[in-house]
């Protein structure tokens, strides 16, 4: 009974994580410019990866595998914002102007 409940929870978060990864990918295509695309990728990084890892942890139970999954989660937790910031800053330094306001219709100064 308990095992069944854990299975249901775990599959719910696995499927949820997959859905958020797809949403992040769709956002990556739909967004109009570089900076807004990075926001969409953020959904995949955080909720997508997080829910997938959570689901896998529930599948693995209390074992070394779970500990390794926690470490993976921490790795993503620390590296993904650093990489995103590096990308955004590099784009800014190279002079890629972000589209601002009104659904990105009028480019104006920051």
């Amino acid at each position, binding site marked *: 009974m308990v095992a069944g409940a854990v299975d249901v929870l775990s599959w719910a978060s696995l499927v949820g994580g997959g859905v958020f990864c797809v949403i992040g990918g769709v956002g990556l295509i739909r*967004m109009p410019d570089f900076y807004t695309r990075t926001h969409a990728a953020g959904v995949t990084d*955080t909720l997508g990866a997080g829910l997938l890892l959570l689901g896998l942890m529930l599948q693995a139970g209390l074992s070394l595998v779970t500990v390794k999954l926690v470490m993976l989660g921490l790795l993503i*937790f620390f590296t*993904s914002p650093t990489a995103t910031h590096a990308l*955004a*800053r590099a784009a800014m330094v190279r002079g890629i102007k972000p589209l601002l306001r009104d659904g990105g219709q009028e480019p104006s100064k920051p």
Partner: protein
Amino acid sequence: MYALSSFLVLFGFWLLLSGYFTPFLVSMGAAAAIAVVALAHRMNVVDHEGHPVHLGWRVIGYWSWLGKEIAKSAWDVSKIIVNPRLPISPMLVRVKTTQKTTVGVVTYANSITLTPGTISVEVSNEEILVHALTRSSAKALLEGEMDRRVTHFEGAS
């Protein structure tokens, strides 16, 4: 103090990743951990920035709050993405930082980037240039709750 705790963390990391507990392999792991600490010491990175253990248990309170915020804003961004009209209003805002240490400012900037909908583009000691996906996400940031929480998390050290 920092060297000792770095060693313990690295050795624990090695043990958990390997899963082998024979004396020979464990001593090799310990040797590897000592070597890494020695190299890091030569590079002058074993300090309060490279290995901020002094933050201690406050990390749990802050991370659980941050996790909740991340889930909320990821949900908001997902709704924007699947909305056919794509209701975004991107803007750049400057956010003041009240943290006293570099570790605090970095924590704040990373937290901003980690919550979907806001990205820290440029970081200095007094302020962070943030690209926000919508007006409301920028407004939420300017209210400064995250800033207060990071400053509290950073502590008086």
